[in-house]
């Protein structure tokens, strides 16, 4: 099942390029419009990069899933003997590889736009890498819930953003602690804990939502 999903995501690589250009463009515009004031840029960079990464994921996942549903692939998944949660887990892994990692690497490469010091960029990369599985899982859960509606990415972000708050807050507190020179280990543990918890919660919730989404 996992290899199927990886292969499946590999096939979708065509329209992933639009996701990455969206992220890069948004980052570029943000750093441009925030103005040259370095200190302000450095303080606002982590929050901005996180929010843009979340929005990029929440706008790209529903497109993939909606297309798969229309082609009847969801029925095939339901008929497969293995549990829906294994499908969702493999989907999250596939998405992590095809969207998560590239986004993290891109934000690492684009961090000079925000004049981040090396220590901060490293911790930014680390927090993004830890937060992404939960984000993809939430994105998939949201797109399953909004599959049969016209809402798309917008509706998905509306209902799921409140749930990403813990990730956002803990991720940013790690960044802030490093900036203030205080020890960021506790925030780091909280980030990992909440990321793991959200991943498990959204996969189980997703396994309820999948049969529901397949019904038209």
């Amino acid at each position, binding site marked *: *099942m996992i*290899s*199927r999903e990886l*292969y*499946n995501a590999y*096939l*979708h690589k*065509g329209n992933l390029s639009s996701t990455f250009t969206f992220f890069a463009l948004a980052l570029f515009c943000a750093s441009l419009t925030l103005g040259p004031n370095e200190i302000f840029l450095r303080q606002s960079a982590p929050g901005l990069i996180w929010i843009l990464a979340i929005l990029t994921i929440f706008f790209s996942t529903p497109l993939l899933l909606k*297309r*798969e549903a*229309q*082609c*009847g*692939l969801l*029925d*095939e998944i*339901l*008929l*497969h*003997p293995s*549990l829906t949660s294994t499908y969702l887990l493999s989907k999250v892994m596939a998405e992590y590889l095809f969207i998560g990692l590239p986004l993290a690497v891109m934000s690492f490469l684009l961090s000079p736009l925000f004049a981040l010091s090396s220590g901060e960029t490293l911790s930014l990369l680390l927090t993004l890498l830890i937060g992404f599985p939960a984000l993809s899982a939430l994105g998939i859960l949201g797109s399953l819930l909004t599959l049969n509606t016209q809402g798309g990415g917008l509706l998905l972000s509306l209902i799921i953003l409140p749930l990403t708050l813990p990730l956002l807050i803990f991720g940013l507190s790690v960044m802030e602690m490093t900036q203030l020179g205080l020890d960021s280990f506790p925030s780091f543990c909280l980030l990992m804990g909440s990321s793991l918890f959200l991943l498990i919660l959204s996969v189980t919730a997703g396994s309820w939502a999948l*049969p*529901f989404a*397949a*019904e038209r």
Partner: protein
Amino acid sequence: MLDVRNISFLPLFSNLSFSLAQREILLIHGTNGAGKSTLLRMIAGLIQPPPGTIFWKGKRIQLSTYQQNLLYSGHSLGLHPEALLKDQVNLWHYHYRVEKKAIEEALHIWGVAPLVNQKTQHLSQGQQKRLSLSRLHWLARPLWILDEPHTNLDSEGRKIFEDSLAHHIENEGLILLASHEKRPEIREICL
């Protein structure tokens, strides 16, 4: 082998019961929106509430094991839009753990093998239908649940389909068919 007792889905049909023995075809026909697809999806276990009243080989069904011996082909064809032919074969291979050779053979029988360098979304409806129906050959499952298989199949495709039906019936298969075409010799239920 398969018997269904008083399944109901309120506005469309209520406590419908029938049974299907081996080597038997059952035709379900009715006007559009009469609930044919809903009934078929229910029997395939795709729609909850759990079909408590379906028995397979006399025992109440357990979804994950029951679904392993059924083949469902519905309106949506289950093909990956971006996939080339070889990608589709790989996908099926990973998904159903069926030998690639068997899949390619089936593609030859259905005459879709030469369409190698085209993505599924660029194929015509008929070709896509044939590609999807090729699973009748490479996926060995006793119970077939087919939802309007005749749509946009040309005469040659139809002939291949009829042969596969006959072939399946010979070796103890069961077929549940939903379609508009009346077939005098087959038992039918009207919704």
